[in-house]
């Protein structure tokens, strides 16, 4: 086939041409990437219900007034953290604003990834920074004393229980329960109704799932992850006692499928009458008392149970941070200032209902009669929990970093998740608590070595 042989040179040319076509196409798309242009900003945020409401209200109430278009990227919690770390650590500047928590703010600020907000605050008198709850303000301030985040909503933790079930079984919930009292009540309330268990405690692996409530129990039992000089304490003293207590309680009287239950599963279990008590985030109350909830009006709220400390509730906030590499910092601040304002809370209250207000960050929210009326069952308990939380001093001994339900180092996400996988195995009965903690101690020690 001589004819075909001659043509093979053209074949190579055709391959090259096709390759070049791809190259040309690539060039055409160049304008699409990068940061947003003109009066528009890119916002990356976690997919929580409060953010979904924000997404709904932005075009009509923010863009219309300011002319700033907001492009939202919404992702689940773990994905959003990955993405934010990726974009902020490389200072790629694709996102002007991101939802970050009081866990990230201190070390993001230290790494120089965030824009300090003090200059904006100085010019923006309408924002009223002093209305923001002191614990929130403190947890979003960097080591250099500058403000690096403004809270969107805040939460602590407390104990929720079914008042009707307790009344029917003649049980009384103390105004400030201890963990031992809660364990006794869980035993008595277990089986109060067909298929109802005593208490729901998170058993799903994840540093933001099971580790959060467990660490508050550890704190009040006198344990800690690390001593002030970075000695890991995971398989000794209070940590061991607390973990054994937590795992025993959830195995004996906890929810079905505890090793896979996180916030969502417990919320669902509480709404469907599968558990009599639940220790979790204060923000859950909004859902339990919200429209269409079968348990609305039947739930009582008391402070986080304690053992050796006065209070044990955690402190957490989803806040806004502005990336240092952002080329639209002024527009970004306008958005943050709007989304974290008291005015935005009023907007949500009047358009979507007061139960859906992103609360837990401003003193004025708790003085608002409309909000008080809508959240009469829980607003006092929430406010007390948030204002009494003490991230600097959450346990019985000095800590190396601030933080109640976490240790404020980047390594904690991996450490917490790996330890929780061990402990989730203990809840499922695959391993024992001492064995799980021995393995965890080695992991914690490896992390601590870096800081000693």
């Amino acid at each position, binding site marked *: 086939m001589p004819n075909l042989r001659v043509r093979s040179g053209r074949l190579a040319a055709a391959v090259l041409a096709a390759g070049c076509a791809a190259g040309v196409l690539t060039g055409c798309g160049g304008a699409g*990437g990068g940061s947003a242009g003109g009066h528009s900003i890119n916002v990356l945020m976690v997919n929580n219900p409060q953010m979904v409401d924000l997404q709904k209200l932005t075009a009509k109430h923010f863009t219309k007034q300011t002319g700033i278009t907001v492009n939202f990227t*919404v992702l689940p919690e773990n994905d959003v953290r990955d993405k934010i770390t990726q974009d902020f650590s490389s200072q790629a500047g694709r996102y002007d604003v991101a939802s970050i928590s009081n866990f990230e703010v201190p070390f993001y600020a230290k790494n120089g990834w965030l824009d300090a907000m003090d200059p904006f605050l100085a010019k923006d008198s309408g924002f009223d920074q002093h209305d923001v709850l002191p614990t929130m303000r403190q947890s979003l301030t960097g080591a250099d004393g500058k403000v690096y985040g403004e809270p969107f909503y805040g939460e602590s933790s407390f104990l929720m229980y079914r008042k009707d079930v307790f009344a029917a079984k003649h049980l009384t919930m103390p105004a400030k329960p201890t963990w031992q009292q809660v364990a006794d009540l869980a035993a008595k309330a277990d089986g109060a109704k067909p298929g109802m268990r005593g208490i729901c405690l998170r058993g799903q692996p994840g540093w933001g799932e099971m580790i959060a409530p467990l660490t508050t129990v550890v704190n009040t039992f006198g344990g800690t992850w690390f001593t002030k000089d970075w000695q890991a304490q995971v398989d000794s003293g209070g940590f061991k006692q607390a973990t054994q207590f937590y795992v025993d309680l959830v195995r004996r009287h906890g929810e079905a499928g505890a090793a896979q239950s996180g916030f*969502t599963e417990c919320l669902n279990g509480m709404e469907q009458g599968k558990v009599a008590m639940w220790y979790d985030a204060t923000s859950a109350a909004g859902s339990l008392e919200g429209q269409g909830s079968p348990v609305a009006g039947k739930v009582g709220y008391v402070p986080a149970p304690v053992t050796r400390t006065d209070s044990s509730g955690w402190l957490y906030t989803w806040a806004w941070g502005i990336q240092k590499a952002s080329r639209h910092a002024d527009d970004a601040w306008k958005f943050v200032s709007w989304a974290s304002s008291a005015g935005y809370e009023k907007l949500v209250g009047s358009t979507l209902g007061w139960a859906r207000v992103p609360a837990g960050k401003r003193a004025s929210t708790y003085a608002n009669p409309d909000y008080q009326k809508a959240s009469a069952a829980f607003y006092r308990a929430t406010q007390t929990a948030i204002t009494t939380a003490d991230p600097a001093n959450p346990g019985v001994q000095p800590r190396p970093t601030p933080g109640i339900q976490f240790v404020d180092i980047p390594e904690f996400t991996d450490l917490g998740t790996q330890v929780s996988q061990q402990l989730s195995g203990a809840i499922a009965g695959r391993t024992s608590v001492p064995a799980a903690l021995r393995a965890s101690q080695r992991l914690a020690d490896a992390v601590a070595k870096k800081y000693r």
Partner: protein
Amino acid sequence: MRRILGVVAWLVGIAFFFPVAWMVFTSLHSEQAAATNPPDVTAPLTLDGYREFFGASTGASPWPYLINSATASLVSTLLVVILAMLAGYALAIRPVRRWTDALFFFLSTKMLPAVAGLLPIYLISQRIGLLDNVWLMVVLYTAMNLPIAVWMMHSFLREVPVAILEAAALDGARLPTVLRRVILPVAAPGVAATALICFIFSWNEMLFARVLTGVVAGTAPVFLTSFVTSQGLFLSKVCAAATVISVPVLAAGFAAQNKLVQGLSLGAVK
């Protein structure tokens, strides 16, 4: 015996189809009913999950994501088929020197786990300003699917009888004509099978899309994950989204079905 095999075949078929059917079924429930355990099969059906997918409560439209996915998948598939056909020709019909080495070189590029290339690709695309750009996805999907497509096209093109190529050459047909009017009709089932596989792979690709896209170039699988939340119920929404996002793949499968059956068995029996 035939009967037993028939029953087994049906059982396996149902076992494969059941999760898909369950996904569609769940997508038609309210969030509360979808999260009920054990499942309540008598719960009333609703289209709320689909309304949510199309942005009923957030106003976030799925169309930009679907269009990005379609662009990345269709353009990359087209490029892959053209390139693989030419490569297949050079490896099967007019084998270049040491064509087996070339073939295995193509395959060796698939031996590195994709995730190992992710970080370098991220950094390079950041440097050259291609992050969050749909054409980056086109290039990546083309590169990712090309080796397997070359192998497929190679085995399909080997089945093309040499006699008809010689006949075409004697009639004075030049290469483009030979490719278009002689080889393509004979190899059509193979081309369809290759194109379908590449389309499915790139439509479903999630790892690279999740890391390399953001505000403007997000693809449908990335959009799908945005319904997952750690605070609240999302099962019905995610199932509805997964159902809608599966439709183009199903449509492509049905469209290629006739050709595909021939294509998959082509070369199996001499």
